[in-house]
């Protein structure tokens, strides 16, 4: 048996190298050189965008939209343009953005500077979820250092360009991670999603053109400009997977897109606990359709997962072994969306309440045989009928569990008690 050697990381390594929360070690390691070249005009905005397009980078928040194209959509010559960073990492079991913020704040600041200089923004807001106290302290301290060194604020890198970066904190609402709801929240209102179009690129924060990117997405940008898109792509291209649940070494792992689910679990995360067998895994957060043992050799990339009816989402891999009760897991998942539904759309608001009630009665031994068809009907009613992706997040796992683990539901309905 050969031992597995984890490949060299090019993004995550910044967060795993001690000292990278400080400016000087980051600069000595080559940090801020890409931003300096952009500020000095050595790299024109067109060249930056071309590099991003060539790199194939896609948004890491969950939607997977091509980043270069997003940057291209920002109109030139607008009087005011903003950059907004989505650091409201709330998709269950996703923790890569927090890891980057706590370990490599200067990498994010450099990505924000490059974004602002490229699209002509003088101001950027970093929206962090409130619970990220440590991340926020780390980022604020790093911003202070960068400001004192003239890299942020007036005349960045000695150029005539100003880029101010403001850290803004949320107040506890999963829905604020949806990009238009985030803008509402940043404007001081309830985090309710907006109708699109117009997209934020045309009318975002204060109805101004706004470039909105996830923390991890922006952390890839300096790496792409430093290595060049071709060498960057040689690494996979790389993606950060948050692996959690029933694994020996839960954590964030950088692996090439297309890595096998089996390898993530058994090579990177140390496998399952002794004596346990694999049961299921969510490949991209609890909004993605869970995979089962037949899928262990599926490549973890956008297209392969989409073909299966699942998605890469935020690349949060939640691993479940045979000790877990699938009905409890699905009930907990649906309860989460019930808690977090903003209440705007009826199918999401009512569907999550209704499905939770049915699942709870099944778990408490009061389930009826027709409940399984009822759950399928609720899931159908929530598919394609909601304003934003929240309501759409319930059906995939609910339906998949009814397909793959129907026997567990049936055991409860036949009178088994919790835990069998």
């Amino acid at each position, binding site marked *: 048996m050969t031992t597995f050697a984890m490949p060299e990381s090019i993004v995550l390594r910044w967060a795993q190298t001690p000292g990278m929360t400080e400016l000087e070690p980051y600069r000595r390691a080559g940090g801020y050189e890409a931003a300096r070249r952009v500020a000095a005009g050595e790299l024109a905005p067109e060249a930056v965008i071309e590099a991003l397009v060539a790199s194939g980078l896609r948004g890491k928040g969950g939607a997977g939209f091509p980043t270069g194209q997003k940057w291209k959509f920002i109109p030139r010559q607008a009087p005011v343009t903003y950059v907004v960073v989505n650091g409201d990492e709330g998709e269950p079991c996703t923790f890569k953005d927090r890891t980057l913020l706590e370990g490599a704040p200067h990498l994010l600041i450099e990505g924000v500077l490059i974004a602002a200089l490229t699209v002509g923004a003088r101001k950027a807001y970093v929206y962090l979820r409130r619970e990220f106290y440590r991340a926020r302290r780390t980022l604020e301290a790093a911003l202070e250092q960068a400001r004192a060194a003239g890299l942020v604020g007036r005349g960045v890198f000695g150029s005539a360009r100003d880029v101010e970066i403001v850290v803004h904190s949320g*107040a506890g609402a999963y829905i604020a991670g949806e990009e238009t709801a985030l803008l509402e929240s940043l404007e*001081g209102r309830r985090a309710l999603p907006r109708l699109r179009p117009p997209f934020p690129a045309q009318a975002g924060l*204060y109805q101004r053109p706004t470039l909105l990117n996830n923390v991890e997405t922006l952390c890839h940008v300096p790496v792409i400009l430093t290595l060049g898109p071709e060498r960057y792509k040689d690494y996979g291209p790389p993606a950060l997977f948050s692996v*959690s649940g029933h694994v020996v070494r839960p954590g964030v792992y950088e692996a090439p897109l297309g890595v096998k689910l089996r390898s993530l679990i058994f090579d990177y995360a140390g496998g399952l606990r002794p004596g346990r067998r694999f049961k299921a895994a969510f490949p991209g957060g609890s909004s993605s359709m869970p995979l089962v043992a037949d899928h262990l050799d599926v490549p973890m990339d956008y297209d392969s997962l989409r073909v299966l009816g699942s998605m890469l989402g935020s690349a949060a891999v939640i691993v479940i072994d045979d000790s877990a009760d699938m009905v409890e897991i699905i009930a907990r998942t649906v309860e989460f969306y019930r808690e977090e539904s903003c209440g705007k759309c009826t199918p999401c608001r009512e569907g999550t309440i209704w499905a939770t009630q049915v699942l709870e009665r099944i778990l408490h031994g009061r389930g009826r045989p027709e409940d399984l068809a009822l759950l399928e009907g609720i899931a159908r009613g929530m598919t394609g009928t909601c304003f934003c992706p929240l309501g759409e997040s319930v059906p995939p796992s609910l339906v998949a569990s009814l397909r793959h683990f129907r026997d567990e539901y049936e055991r409860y309905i036949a009178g088994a008690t919790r835990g069998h």
Partner: protein
Amino acid sequence: MSGPPARPLGAEARAEIARLVGLYEHRQSALLPALFVAQREHGYLSPEALAGVAEALDLPVSEVASVASFYRLFYLKPVGRHVIQVCTNLACMLNGCAAVVRRFGERLGVASGETTADGRFTLRTVECLAACEEAPAVLVDEDRWARVTPGDIDRLLERYP
């Protein structure tokens, strides 16, 4: 209570809110941060605190109350000196958070959402804290505690007088 104070927010809080307003193109953007300033000063968002924020930002009190009630981390009722947030989402559930929640409840004599009679602790079960490599994860005020077991809880509580 002996009636609301003359000014609902202190001078320091009002100065801080004025500074926050300067960070944004529209003053309402300062609402969430301003509510945290008021909450820190009053311990929770009392009607006086909400009115104070409304006055400082020149917004209707109804709008301020509507926004405050949308977000989970604004407290519209008094909370304990320390707020304990126990994550119960999937990764923590799979790693035994139920026993942690139960132990906190027994030790403090409260259920989730309640405050101890001495006003020291409020216990809340919460959604994913994005600290899943440390499951079960617990936040006490601004401190994150990793891989918490029921056996850790007595020592943990002692740190928060």
